[in-house]
C-alpha cells in the first residue's frame, strides 16, 4: 500500500513559509478544498485534455516572455497530434536537460496518444494547453489565465483534465 495525504508527513514543512518570506504574495493560498467532481462516464469513453506549466509551444509561435519580472499570463494551444520534434520549450525556471532529450518527461504527448490507441482513454481534445509557471501574481493568474484555460478546456469538450507542473 502506498502513502496518501492522510498518513504521510509533509516532506519539507517549512518550505511554504520560506517562499512566502522571500517572495511575499507570490504563492497561491487556498483556505478551502474545491468539491470533488467525478467522471460522468468511464475513462475509456472520456475525452481527456492536458494542461501544463512547462512552457511547451509549437515552433514558430510567439515565445513566452520568460524575462518579465511578474511573468507571462498567456497560454499556447499545442495540438494533441503534434510531433515532439515540432515543439519547443520557452521557460527558464526548471531544468530541461531531460525534456530536451525526450519531451515526454514533462509533456507526455506520445504516451497520451498511445493510451488512446490502446483504448485506456476515450480520446484527447484537439489541443492541449501550455503556459509558464513563473507568474508572481496569483490573483491575476486565477482571474485571467486560469479562467481562460478553463473556458477553452470546456469549449473543446474535455471530460477530464490532467494537469502537470514543471
Amino acid at each position, binding site marked *: 500500500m502506498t502513502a496518501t*495525504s492522510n498518513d*504521510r508527513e509533509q516532506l519539507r514543512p517549512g518550505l511554504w513559509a520560506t517562499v512566502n518570506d522571500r517572495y511575499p504574495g507570490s504563492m497561491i493560498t487556498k483556505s478551502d478544498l474545491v468539491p*470533488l467532481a467525478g467522471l460522468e462516464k468511464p*475513462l475509456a469513453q472520456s475525452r*481527456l485534455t492536458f494542461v501544463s506549466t512547462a512552457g511547451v509551444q509549437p515552433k514558430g509561435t510567439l515565445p513566452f516572455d520568460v524575462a518579465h519580472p511578474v511573468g507571462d499570463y498567456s497560454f499556447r494551444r499545442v495540438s494533441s497530434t503534434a510531433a515532439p520534434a515540432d515543439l519547443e520549450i520557452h521557460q527558464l525556471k526548471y531544468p530541461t536537460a531531460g525534456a530536451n532529450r525526450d519531451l515526454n*518527461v514533462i509533456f*507526455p504527448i506520445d504516451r497520451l496518444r498511445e493510451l488512446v490507441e490502446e483504448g*485506456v482513454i476515450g480520446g484527447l481534445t484537439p489541443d492541449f494547453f501550455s503556459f509558464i509557471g513563473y507568474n508572481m501574481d496569483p490573483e491575476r493568474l486565477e482571474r485571467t489565465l486560469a479562467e481562460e484555460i478553463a473556458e477553452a478546456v470546456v469549449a473543446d469538450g474535455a471530460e*477530464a483534465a*490532467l494537469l502537470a507542473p514543471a
Partner: protein
Amino acid sequence: MTEHAKPPRAVFVPFMMGHHFGVPFHRDLQRRIILEALDRLIQAEQSGDIHALPVTWAQARREGIAIERELGMRS
C-alpha cells in the same frame, strides 16, 4: 507545495523539477505516472486526495540509464 495548492486530487512525484513524468526514454515509467494520476479520478474519495508515487528519483534514474544502454545511447 502540492498540499498547499489544495488540488482536488493529485499524485506527488518525488522527482527532480522538470521530470514529473520520469526520465528520458523510460516509456513504462512515463505511462505509469499518467495512469496513477488518472486512477485518482476513480479512486479518490474526497477532495484533497494526494497519492504518493512509490518510486524514488534514484530508482528512476537507474532504470533510465539501463534503458539508454539497451538502446545503445550510452556506454
